[in-house]
């Protein structure tokens, strides 16, 4: 009785803590968002639509993508590792990651623009950083989940073997954890890279109210030519984009994938390892060798940093104090550490003050009398949810059989995967205005178009996750199934479906995240000066952002959307994910 009450109390306290964290997060975002008094210097840059400049645009877009990707990679490894290694931190970091990856980032994009542009006093660098930040937010969470997942699925005996041999934190990281991450890291990087293109298109054009800013790049070129209806120029840009995507796939991702496959953990030998001509070429090319040498040098430097970070802070502090003791008399050292602590507390207190003030301001804003449109929010949420459910069901219906076919058929894998990877990378955002133009005029046309775009934002996550799920079925299980004559439906229900269940769940979670994001673009489209909308939470949010500028509506839409998403994740996907880890994890 008393224990039950104690548990209820503890759970209530946990819920309360979650609420507090959520409020603080919302407050922090609001704090950033509240600073609208930004002056853009020099006015909007010229609208890029010159076909001869395509290589120049492509190189700028590629640079943005690369910067965002490097950031995502570093972030993912640090965040994923911390969430896994530090249990108390993980209890907070994982739900936060859940929220972050399901928050429709595009909804917060204006906030990011205000922040970065304000930081650089209206300079172009601010716009560039805002774009990189948006691409980062579309890439990072997926890779982070990959890192966390590979860490949790490290076979226990491997980890124990490392610990038993007294492997220290640095060596454990480079010899066990990092290699264990590699397959998922590479795979999810491919996904994220493709997702990045999708958002690159959206973020090279920045609309703030009536003002449009274009960063020179492939994305803005595509959008501008499409919006002007110069479809020939659009097609030329699209061809360049596809060529770039294919080149990167052949020269980078494919060889990386082959390289990563040797980090797959398997108990039995399963025939010859995959090979890649390009990988061999990379190895033989002298420049590649020099790059390797340079890479090793950078890596060993990085390792020192990582080791310093991974060393328990108290030990680090003690070491620092020792050094301080040697250099200064004890009193001075103590004074120094006191001053450092004081500064730290000052910063924390200042930030806390700002955040709390923002929370109060946000509360005040929300407590004002509701605008009449606010009554539309529940219905808008329901409409958007239905749209996404439909898109999800369509995705599921074709990706499960397709993934199974591709993953089990080596020829299909060799031929179709590159095709799908290119298809997935071709950002539907670029073609969307055209689609809208063609079908929006008909009855319910905009609804069809919105579901179509949501589909393009969801299906690839499912497909690629499922393919990797089928391919990671251990060879010995497959052999056992063959040895006992499992075929057809029985093979599907006894082997394939259970084995891919974890990837199905992860893929679904990411797909829904991508879907909510896509909705923000999908329900509200401007084409040749005309605005097309499909009623839903995305169009409500866009209207508030771009037309009415009603801060209260923006926040009500965002918060209700995030609450719905988080509730869905907690109540539906999380239990499924736990079930996947408990029952369907393959472990010996």
């Amino acid at each position: 009785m008393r224990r039950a009450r104690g548990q209820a109390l503890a759970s209530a306290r946990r819920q309360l803590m979650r609420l507090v964290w959520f409020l603080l997060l919302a407050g922090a975002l609001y704090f950033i968002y509240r600073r609208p008094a930004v002056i853009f210097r020099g006015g909007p840059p010229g609208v890029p639509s010159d076909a001869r400049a395509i290589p120049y645009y492509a190189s700028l877009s590629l640079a943005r993508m690369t910067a965002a990707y490097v950031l995502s990679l570093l972030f993912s490894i640090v965040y994923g590792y911390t969430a896994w290694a530090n249990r108390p931190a993980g209890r907070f970091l994982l739900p936060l990651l859940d929220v972050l990856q399901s928050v429709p980032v595009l909804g917060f994009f204006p906030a990011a623009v205000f922040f970065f542009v304000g930081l650089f006093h209206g300079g172009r660098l601010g716009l560039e950083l805002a774009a990189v930040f948006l691409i980062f937010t579309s890439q990072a969470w997926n890779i982070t989940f990959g890192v966390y997942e590979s860490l949790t699925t490290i076979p226990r005996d491997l980890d124990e073997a490392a610990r038993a041999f007294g492997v220290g934190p640095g060596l454990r990281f480079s010899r066990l954890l990092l290699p264990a991450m590699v397959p998922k890291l590479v795979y999810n990087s491919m996904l994220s890279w493709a997702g990045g293109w999708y958002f690159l298109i959206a973020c090279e054009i920045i609309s703030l109210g009536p003002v449009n800013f274009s960063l020179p790049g492939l994305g803005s070129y595509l959008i501008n030519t499409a919006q002007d209806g110069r479809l020939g120029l659009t097609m030329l840009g699209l061809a360049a984009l596809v060529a770039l995507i294919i080149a990167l796939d052949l020269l980078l991702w494919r060889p990386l994938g082959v390289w990563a496959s040797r980090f797959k953990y398997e108990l039995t030998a399963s025939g010859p390892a995959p090979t890649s001509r390009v990988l061999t070429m990379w190895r033989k090319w002298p420049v590649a060798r020099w790059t390797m040498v340079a890479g090793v040098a950078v890596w060993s430097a990085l390792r020192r940093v990582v080791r310093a970070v991974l060393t328990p802070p108290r030990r680090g502090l003690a070491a620092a104090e020792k050094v301080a003791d040697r250099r200064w008399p004890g009193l001075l050292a103590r004074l120094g550490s006191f001053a450092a602590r004081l500064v730290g507390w000052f910063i924390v207190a200042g930030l806390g003050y700002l955040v709390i003030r923002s929370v109060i301001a946000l509360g005040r804003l929300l407590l004002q009398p509701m605008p009449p449109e606010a009554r539309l929010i529940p219905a808008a949420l329901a409409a958007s949810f239905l749209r996404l459910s439909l898109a999800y069901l369509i995705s599921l219906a074709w990706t499960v059989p397709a993934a199974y076919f591709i993953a089990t058929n080596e020829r299909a894998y060799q031929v179709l995967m590159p095709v799908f990877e290119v298809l997935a990378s071709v950002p539907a955002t670029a073609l969307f205005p055209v689609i809208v133009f063609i079908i929006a005029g008909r009855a319910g046309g905009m609804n069809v178009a919105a579901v179509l775009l949501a589909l393009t934002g969801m299906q690839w996550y499912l497909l690629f996750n499922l393919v990797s799920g089928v391919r990671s079925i251990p060879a010995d299980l497959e052999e056992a199934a063959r040895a006992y004559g499992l075929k057809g439906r029985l093979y599907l229900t006894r082997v394939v479906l259970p084995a891919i269940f974890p990837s199905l769940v992860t893929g679904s979670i990411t797909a829904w995240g991508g879907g909510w994001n896509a909705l923000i673009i999908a329900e509200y489209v401007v084409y040749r000066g005309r605005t097309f909308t499909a009623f839903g939470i995305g169009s409500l949010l866009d209207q508030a952002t771009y037309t009415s500028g009603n801060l209260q509506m923006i926040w009500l839409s965002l918060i209700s959307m995030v609450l719905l998403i988080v509730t869905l994740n907690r109540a539906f996907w999380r239990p499924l994910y736990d079930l996947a880890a408990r029952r369907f994890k393959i472990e010996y």
Partner: protein
Amino acid sequence: MALLELKDVTKVYAEEGRSITVLDRVSFDVEEERFVCLVGPSGCGKSTLLRMIAGLDQPTSGRILYEGRPVAGVDPHIAVVFQSFALFPWLTVTQNVELGLESRGVDPTTRRRFADKYIDQVGLDGFEEAYPRELSGGMKQRVGIARALAVEPRLLCMDEPFSALDALTAQNLREEVLSLWEDPNLKVSSIIMVTHGIEEAVFMADRIVAFSARPGRVISTVPVDLPRPRNRKDEAFLRLTDQVYSLIV
């Protein structure tokens, strides 16, 4: 006619343009009611050979005949026990054991009866509803053995079935496998077991086929005529063990 005949079985893998011969013209027979052990250094292709006998892989050249017909794909009269157990983590013990029967379309009641019978025989009574994760290594391999016996094969192929187990568990399980095999009610006629434990081979087999290092060739087949149950301390046992050792090393 022998139960199983191997004639000049050769296996070549192609890897990065080079071809690697794993098995080179392997020939031997397995008569009815025999326990045959394949021994040899690791990498000599003995597991590959077992997989080909079970129909999981095909020889590059040469023939494998089961009861006079070539083995083409998985044969319902041949069952396999895996080194890594290869149990499906999402299925209970019963569901794992029923797997082979289910795929043959056996009705649920019969399936259940067979499963219960063989789960009983390997001493796992009471663990029918457990998941593999909850079992010790020895118990997992018992499930693997029950799964193989449940399809009532004539030929049982075992791929280093005891090498992932601790010594005591392994020895208990060896004796149990022998007593199961000697049970006249059991449908299994012959057993082929891959092992790298020479002592294990001498303890269990009627005949030992010794392989050379890669490419695997049959160096010699050694009959083991020691009376059962065998005693590892017995002088004849030790002599035979030494003899096989000197063949391989």
